[in-house]
């Protein structure tokens, strides 16, 4: 890791953490979406960002990446300001954000993951195409390389976007609701890939909405609802108490029991 001495502005945030924020506040108009949030994600782990609808989960990722302006707060990625380390970050946005009729095929989308290394001048060679195919193969989409993306199912589209992120060979993977609206086979394929990324020593942070799979998929959790409710290893931070705090009355007692069981 190249964590050089962090500058004064970032003093205090853990330079080893793939993503650390302090005092992050984001507002839409004058209504806060996140308020004075602190978080420090561990390196080489799979972390979930969990919270009820409208708790600011996607907003958190976007603000951390400087995609939306923040009112206050510091963000470091591997101890550096985001703009200095964008090469090491791969972001998988929510699926809904693109036009599905855009003239591009699955493999073209994955090749976009290589644009950073290609720069403006270099030509796309057979080697690059092979690399892109390998990434498609990792998510089980090799057979669909030449399909226009609108002709793929929701789950297949999600896998193509994950393949694009894989092509970046980043150290930090940020995923916004990767399992939303996908079929069971896709969910399995995605989680396998994410686990293999972890095994390679990379860090994965995903916004996640399905509470029942949190203990099974993730090591670390950030529970938010406008503010940070709890953060830490699953066993400590993902408990009936913290969940009740985050979700209020929205979770039934039986649900909490079941979750507590699966967490222990």
């Amino acid at each position, binding site marked *: 890791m190249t964590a050089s001495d962090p500058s004064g502005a970032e003093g205090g945030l853990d330079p080893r953490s793939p993503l650390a924020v302090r005092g992050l506040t984001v507002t839409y108009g004058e209504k806060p979406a996140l308020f004075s949030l602190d978080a420090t994600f561990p390196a080489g782990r799979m972390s979930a960002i969990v919270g009820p609808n409208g708790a600011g989960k996607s907003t958190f990722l*976007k603000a951390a*990446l*400087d*995609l939306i302006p923040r009112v206050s707060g510091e963000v470091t990625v591997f101890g550096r300001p985001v*703009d200095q380390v*964008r090469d090491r*970050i791969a*972001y998988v*946005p929510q699926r809904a*954000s*693109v*036009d599905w009729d*855009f*003239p*591009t*095929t699955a493999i*073209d*989308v994955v090749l*976009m993951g290589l*644009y*950073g290394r*290609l720069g*403006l*001048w270099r030509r796309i060679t057979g080697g690059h195409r092979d690399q892109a195919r390998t990434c498609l193969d990792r998510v089980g989409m090799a057979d669909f390389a030449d399909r*226009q993306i609108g002709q793929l199912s929701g*789950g297949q589209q999600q896998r193509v976007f994950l393949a*694009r992120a894989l092509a970046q060979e980043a150290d930090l993977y*940020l995923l916004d609701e990767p399992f939303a609206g996908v*079929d*069971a*086979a*896709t969910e399995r394929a995605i989680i396998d890939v994410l686990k293999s990324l972890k095994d390679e020593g990379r860090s994965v942070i995903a916004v996640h909405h399905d509470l029942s799979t949190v203990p099974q998929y993730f090591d670390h959790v950030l529970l938010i609802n406008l503010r940070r409710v709890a953060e830490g290893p699953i066993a400590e931070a993902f408990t009936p108490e913290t969940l009740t705090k985050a979700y209020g009355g929205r979770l039934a007692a039986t649900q909490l029991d079941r979750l507590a069981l699966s967490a222990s």
Partner: protein
Amino acid sequence: MQGIWAALTLQAGYNAGLVAIGATLLGFAAGAAGAFLFLRKRALVSDAVAHATLPGVGLAFIAMVLMGGDGRSLLGLLLGSAISAWLGLLAVEWISRKTRLPEDAAIGAVLSSFFGLGIVLLTIIQSMSAGRQAGLESFLLGSTAGMLRQDAILIAVAGSVVVGLVWLLRRPMTLVAFDAQYAAARGVNLRRVDLAMMGLVMAVTVIGLKLVGLILIVAMLIIPPVTARFWTERADRVVWLAGGVGAVAGYVGAALSASAPDLPTGPIIVLVSAALFVLSLFFSPARGVAAAFQARRRFQTRVHRRQGLLSLSRSEPIHDPLTLRILKGEGLIRPDGVATEDGLAQAAKIARDERRWEVARAVHHDTALTGRYDGLTPIEDVFTPDEIEDFDTRIGGLRVVAGSA
């Protein structure tokens, strides 16, 4: 006819040849630059840019006259048009960024304001002593009458620069057009890429002013990419194909207009590209209207055929005239509506497949496969023969249970 041929082979005279070459290069540059505008879904911005050139033309003329020149220097006029187009562009961008107005409203406001100002300036120039012969109206619809060698050279040089920059910026522009969020996360400066794209469009507009005029330049930017889109599913091909369509339209249009007196070049070029567009619209194999119509008919036939056969298998009467026509056409029922032997056999097969699907959906674990049931997809396309055999055993088993009960 001979006139057209002469023009197409660049033998219709020096001026016509210059115009044809200029129009070809301009067409290519406009098509390629316009393609990104189209992919970014901001086609209308080009309209604002084009109309915003007019006050610049007027002001440049007045400024040059006041400085003692004759005011008709093309370079000076184009420089003025570029500056005011750029201001118009920034105005659109600023309004849609700082207010809640959608971009199309900002475009409408800027376009008409600048154009109105431009017309007022042209009227004032008409009343100036130096302005009577200025011929600035030709910037509205273009004019090739006075096309000079240096005009053609200007188009050639500027057009090549535009094409070179389109090539250089193809990746960031594609990334932003397809998935702006992802591009921003990668560190692409969206605003700068968008302004660069608009800058290219502006450059094409300015160099095209003399030839096709500000009202029709929009057509040269937009029609080629939408035409190209009918023929490919890949963004890079849309860009270069659009350049090709633009070049062909420019060349053929210029040649046609040279082949007869009083045929205006700009409008003819636009009509040629419109013709290519209409042809693509109807006959593109993947996205054309004819293909879509045919696909719909085929699908409708499949649905009606299957519904009819299901009715036959259940011995239900068929009333739908299209279903009856399809079944009769295929010899599945006799003219009097009674099922033929072939019809009964096919009906039995379809009924069996329906039962297989029912079992499959009840017992098979992979929802991605069972989810493909839609009443039309043949079960053999989804499951292996082994799996289907397994379903059949279960159907047999079910029968036994039903029989023993």
